[in-house]
């Protein structure tokens, strides 16, 4: 059974159908990419999955259990956590304190939470920055901080909203390895990303959204050569090339 099973997910904003009868699934241990042009509804999907928005229709099963009417913090504690595309560090907390929030939400045990924090900081390479404040770090590190905060909640499914865009080339070069290391810890990953080269390289499977609908799904190479995808995502000029 899939870790995440989405069926008929629909969300309208007024007359606009942001997500339209979307079906997709994520299996344990996968890295799945959610791609599509701007405004395709990708971030809306994340918000629907994590309880920040309520779907108008459809349902979400996480680990076999429905998530309907759960609030974001409850969904996080079930084991699905998201990051935000517009980074959301806690500005007046140190990096360690930032990461501590999620760890303490998971457990009241101070020793255990400290070990969650240490592990997340270590994995993201932020250990030596632990006592700094977010505004002292470059944007690339803040992206890693977002992930460290999420990982400290001990998720089973990590939803990453554009984790790669904005990284420097040297940061980006190691990012694929980083995801593999997270996966090795037993965390399944679903990510939104615009940078196709990166998505192709790291994702086992890709789901393509366009105008809120799924237009393709499958292995990276198959999706990349799908004419509908090329037309929607890369623009008309690329079709057939």
């Amino acid at each position, binding site marked *: 059974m899939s870790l995440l099973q989405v069926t008929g997910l629909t969300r309208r904003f007024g007359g606009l159908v942001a997500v339209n009868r979307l079906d997709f699934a994520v299996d344990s241990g996968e890295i799945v990419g959610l791609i599509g042009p701007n405004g395709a509804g990708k971030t809306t999907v994340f918000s629907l999955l994590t309880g920040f928005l309520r779907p108008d229709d459809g349902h979400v099963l996480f680990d076999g259990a429905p998530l309907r009417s759960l*609030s974001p913090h409850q969904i*996080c504690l079930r084991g699905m956590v998201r990051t935000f595309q517009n980074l959301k*560090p806690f500005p007046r907390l140190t990096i360690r304190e930032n990461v501590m929030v999620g760890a303490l939400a998971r457990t009241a045990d101070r020793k255990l939470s400290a070990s969650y924090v240490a592990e997340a900081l270590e994995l993201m390479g932020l250990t030596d920055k632990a006592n700094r404040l977010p505004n*002292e770090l470059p944007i690339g590190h803040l992206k890693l901080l977002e992930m460290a905060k999420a990982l400290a909640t001990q998720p089973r499914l990590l939803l990453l909203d554009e984790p790669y865009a904005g990284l420097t080339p040297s940061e980006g070069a190691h990012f694929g390895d980083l995801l593999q290391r997270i996966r090795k810890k037993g965390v399944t990953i679903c990510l939104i990303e615009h940078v196709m080269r990166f998505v192709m390289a790291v994702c086992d499977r890709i789901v393509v959204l366009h105008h809120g609908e799924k237009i393709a799904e499958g292995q990276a190479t198959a999706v990349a050569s799908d004419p509908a995808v090329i037309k929607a995502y890369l623009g008309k000029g690329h079709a057939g090339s």
Partner: protein
Amino acid sequence: MRKLALAILAAVFLVVYPLLVHNRFFLHLSIMVLLYALLGMSWNLLGGYTGQISFGHAAFFGTGAYTSTLLLLRFGLSPWLGMFVGAVLALLLSLPLGWLTFRLRGPYFALSTLAFAEIVRVIVYNWDTLTGGGDGLNILTDLGGVVRFYYIILALTVAAVLVMRACVRSRWGYFLNAIREDEDAAEALGVPATRMKVIVLAVSAFFVALGGSFFAAYQLYINPDLVYESQISIQMIVVTIVGGIGTLEGPAVGALIIVPLSEYFRGISPVANPLIYGLFIVMFMLFLPEGIVSRVRRLLTRPTGAVVEERDQVSAHI
């Protein structure tokens, strides 16, 4: 270690103070300082740590005052017991306010508190068969001398300090800070933001109501304008901001400065008092916006580098 020694020294001083100082006015002043330290601290847990600004805490203050006073007048219950009934009542009163407004993002809570306090005041004003309406309530029972009152408010304030300290040092402290900094991010990380805010409002209301009961017993007279007045809500905010919002010591330091000052100016000229007082607040906001405690901390830790420095610059912007 030095901090502990300082705390013990302060505690000893506060305990022996009324034995050394016999001047009634100074004792009165100390009582009011302690009372406002208590109120500011309670407000600060919600406003400073959690970032939920209330303009209506007078509602809880007045509810404490009226509950304990009515229990004394109707049933002969000592206000030192009745105050806990009042505090629980204020806590219960805070729950619907919290549940209704904390689900919404934005300034809804702050605005609702204004209306809420006014609604409660109007109800108390008009329910004259119970509350005596605008005539207020007189306490004719002898409740003891000023020294006794001093020790009671000292005990209440110390209890509040200990509770607030326990709150902000526990994992709640992280949750409250996270909610203040970015509520969505906190929720996403598993922090039950709405529930935390409701709980903190309830704790805050509880302690403010204790202060209200104390005030009524101390003044021996209350009416709706005295204990539900917006000035009470404002004063809690002022002592907190002057002392240092979001710090444990801040409200006490602020009360130590603001309360004598406002009493002093009131003595000079009751008419000019609000004007001078207002000017003083404006000067404060202009030159020391982060509050005394944060400024002193910054001066003490300056040599250690940029981290503290920047931290305070950010905190100055709330």
